[in-house]
């Protein structure tokens, strides 16, 4: 009897925490559907009376969030692709080739992960001006195209793939790129999935680089657009919640579908870092 009561209490407690975790997003979506002028909430008026999508249209078209969305999607896709192709090349060399300074290079990659980005941003800002890439999407893509995290992750995974497979391929006259792309990459899908998830999240949500490397609307990302929107139109909460939804819902939808893989990928990522 006491056992049942304890279990019931446990479920109530866990459910309450779940509500606390999710509620702000429910609030975001409900508010984004409200008719203008009624943002001021009392708890009784949480649910919009006449739900409308016009706030989304307004934010998407008039406030340029359509452009921000396109930019963010473009940058995220490019960074994911870059990391798959380039990180795997470096990881392959570290896993399969012998060269002078290999161990030193591996240590440098690990050490690099300890450098906070704040130390790098001023020189990167100067560099992008010098390359005449300031205020372009390329400026946001290039710095994160090859990352130690992905190299490290793939290298560890490649190490577990038997070398006898590539030796057989070498006998057949395959070169390194063929071995990497035809033999190793198809076997490394779980690691690539982790890489894609991590890169997609950090790239989609990135804020600091867009903030310092762009200045015009045409190159703005969702995070930056929303941040500037929030600080500029301090009280227009309905449209802010619509803009927040545009930024958050794609990620949350993907999370709903792949939550098991994403959670295990992100915790593994943290453990390996």
């Amino acid at each position: 009897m006491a056992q049942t009561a304890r279990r019931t209490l446990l479920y109530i407690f866990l459910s309450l925490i779940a509500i606390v975790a999710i509620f702000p997003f429910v609030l975001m979506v409900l508010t984004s559907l409200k008719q203008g002028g009624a943002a001021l909430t009392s708890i009784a008026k949480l649910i919009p009376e006449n739900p409308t999508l016009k706030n989304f249209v307004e934010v998407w078209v008039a406030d340029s969030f359509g452009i921000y969305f396109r930019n963010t999607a473009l940058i995220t896709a490019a960074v994911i692709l870059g990391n798959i192709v380039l990180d795997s090349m470096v990881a392959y060399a570290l896993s399969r080739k012998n060269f002078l300074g290999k161990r030193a290079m591996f240590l440098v990659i690990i050490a690099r992960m300890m450098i906070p980005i704040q130390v790098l941003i001023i020189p990167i800002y100067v560099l992008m001006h010098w390359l005449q890439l300031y205020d372009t999407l390329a400026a946001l893509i290039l710095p994160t195209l090859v990352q130690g995290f992905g190299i490290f992750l793939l290298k560890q995974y490649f190490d577990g793939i038997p070398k006898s497979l590539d030796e057989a391929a070498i006998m057949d006259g395959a070169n390194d790129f063929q071995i990497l792309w035809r033999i190793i990459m198809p076997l490394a899908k779980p690691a690539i999935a982790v890489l894609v998830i991590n890169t997609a999240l950090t790239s989609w949500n990135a804020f600091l680089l867009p903030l310092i490397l762009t200045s015009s609307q045409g190159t703005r990302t969702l995070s930056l657009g929303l941040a500037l929107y929030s600080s500029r139109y301090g009280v227009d909460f309905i449209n802010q919640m619509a803009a927040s939804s545009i930024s958050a819902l794609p990620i949350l939808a993907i999370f709903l579908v792949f939550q098991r893989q994403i959670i295990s990928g992100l915790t593994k990522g943290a453990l390996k870092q």
Partner: protein
Amino acid sequence: MANKRKFSTFILLSPWIVAFIAFSLYPVGYSLYLSFSKYNPLAGQAPQFIGLGNYKEIIQDPAFWQAVKNTVIFVVGTIPVTTAIAIVLAVFLNQKIRFRSFFRASYFVPVMTSVIVISTIFTYIYSPYGLLNSFLNLFGIQGKNWLLNTNFALPAIMLMMIWASFGYYTVLFLAGLQNIPEEIYESAAIDGASSVQQFFRITLPLLRPMLIFALVINTIRSFQIFSQIFVMTQGGPLGSTRTVVYYLYNMGFQKFRMGYASGIAYLLFVIILIFSVIQMKSLSYEEQFYGR
């Protein structure tokens, strides 16, 4: 043949070499140089070497020390709370319960969302006519303009960040707990250990490496807090939410004192380096523990 192989190694490594030089080696070196220089990019002049000038000024700058104080308050005020919540939830979730993956996923939702979105939602919740005040009104408590109050703005942001990050550490600890063999608890139970004793004698000691790792990661992240401040308060009111990185941004990219900002960045770097070294040590513990 051998030459061809060497050449292909070089091609394979070239993306990293280019990226490393452009986005790691050069920035680390150049910002160190800038930290000893006076540099305003808008003035159109090259950086001017001034030795330890920036560091001397930073150490005497009350605004910098206020930023350090706020950041330390943030770190000390959030991390123990987040960690305690996460451990308790992880222990609860590690029992034989139904809907475990539902609970785990729902706690993880804030972790997935960008800090900018979270900050926007909480600016709304904390606003004078927002949900928090409307909730407090139910109990007859007079609300405040939380983010414009020097006593409440920083705690309000701290509370938000505890909410935003507890799920990540819960999932991390849960993964650690699932690595502890069931038999240990079973034999402890046979020996008559209560569940509280089991928690302090078995769970906590075995979770220690994971715990150190989480504390260090959280400390490093918390020292870098910036975006929340940018969206919610811009460091105000009266500098009460100005953090080290916000001050760095303010000096470097609003006042364009990039030498001065680089000095702040390097001081931050040293702090984070200390914690990273601790992390390296904790990781090797962890490897021993899980035998990875």
